[in-house]
């Protein structure tokens, strides 16, 4: 009967049910009840969509788009900041090497200067020692001894 009401049967089946309904009071009553039920649904007023609904949906969409835009901008700034501030391995390595070179250059210069200073002082001190030493036994003894030996 449900299929009959919905027009889901073939013409032949539809016709057969019509004929049956004409002779069967029980099925006729059932059909009437189902038709009444259907009218109840069909008479149900279609509800009007609230007027402001589109506006609130549109506002939501706009708010979402704005949020996405600001997120995108924030994303760009953040990436830029990371690029500048974040310790990238290459940057870290190159700055470490640079630091080592600088330290090596400065400390190397100082050591060299210190060495040459020490050398110069040593030479001077020897000369000083040999020239001004009150006891020139080093030269005199050596020379004297050999000379004495050969002589």
């Amino acid at each position, binding site marked *: 009967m449900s*299929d009959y009401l919905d027009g889901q049967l073939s013409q032949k089946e539809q016709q057969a049910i019509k004929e049956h309904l004409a002779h069967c009071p029980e099925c006729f009553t059932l059909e009437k009840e*189902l038709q009444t*039920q259907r009218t109840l*649904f069909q008479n*149900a007023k279609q509800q009007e969509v*609230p007027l402001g*609904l589109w506006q609130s949906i549109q506002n939501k969409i706009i708010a979402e788009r704005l949020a996405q835009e600001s997120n995108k901008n924030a994303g760009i700034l953040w990436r830029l900041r990371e690029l500048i501030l974040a310790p990238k391995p290459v940057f870290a390595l190159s700055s470490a090497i640079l630091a080592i070179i600088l330290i090596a250059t400065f400390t190397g210069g100082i050591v060299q200067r210190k060495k040459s200073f020490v050398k110069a002082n040593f030479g001077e001190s020897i000369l000083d020692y040999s020239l001004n030493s009150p006891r020139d036994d080093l030269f005199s003894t050596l020379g004297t001894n050999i000379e004495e030996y050969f002589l």
Partner: protein
Amino acid sequence: MQDITVDILERACQGDIGAFEQIYKVTSSFVYNVAYRITSNSADAEEVTQDVFMKIYHNLKGFQFRSAFKTWVYRITVNTAINRYRQSSREIKERIDYDGLIESLPDSCSTAEGAIGSDNQEKLNLLLEKLSMEYKVCLILREINGLSYQEIAATLKIPINTVRSRLKRARQALLERARKGLIKDEM
């Protein structure tokens, strides 16, 4: 529901708000009415309608045109409305004692015929409320929104024969309810 052209859909996919408004104009009445009948509540129906259109907006780019756009909207609507109804029922378990309300209705409303004569919005909701959700949804789509068996089957992703049997059982259940009302009146 009118058909929506591919051009409008494509423009809406690209973010054209005007095209999306056209989609809203064509589909909103269906969405709101199905939501209203499933949730039996205008505030919930409004919320469901908003959710449905936000879901359409978010997923429009992913719509593959494998199924009809209408069917896609039907499916989103039914699922969102059912979820909302269940959520509301959980939140306010004893919001309305429907049995009590039906019994307190005037005598003329105990039968379907009685309900037709007066404002039958609430009564229809009350009758639908007595059905299980699967019967209720089938009946709403068929009787109130006029969907074909094929469209209901595609929307609910069930075989046509299941649609047929659910409609039959739903109508039977409503008739039994109306008859019980008659017997009660006679007593």
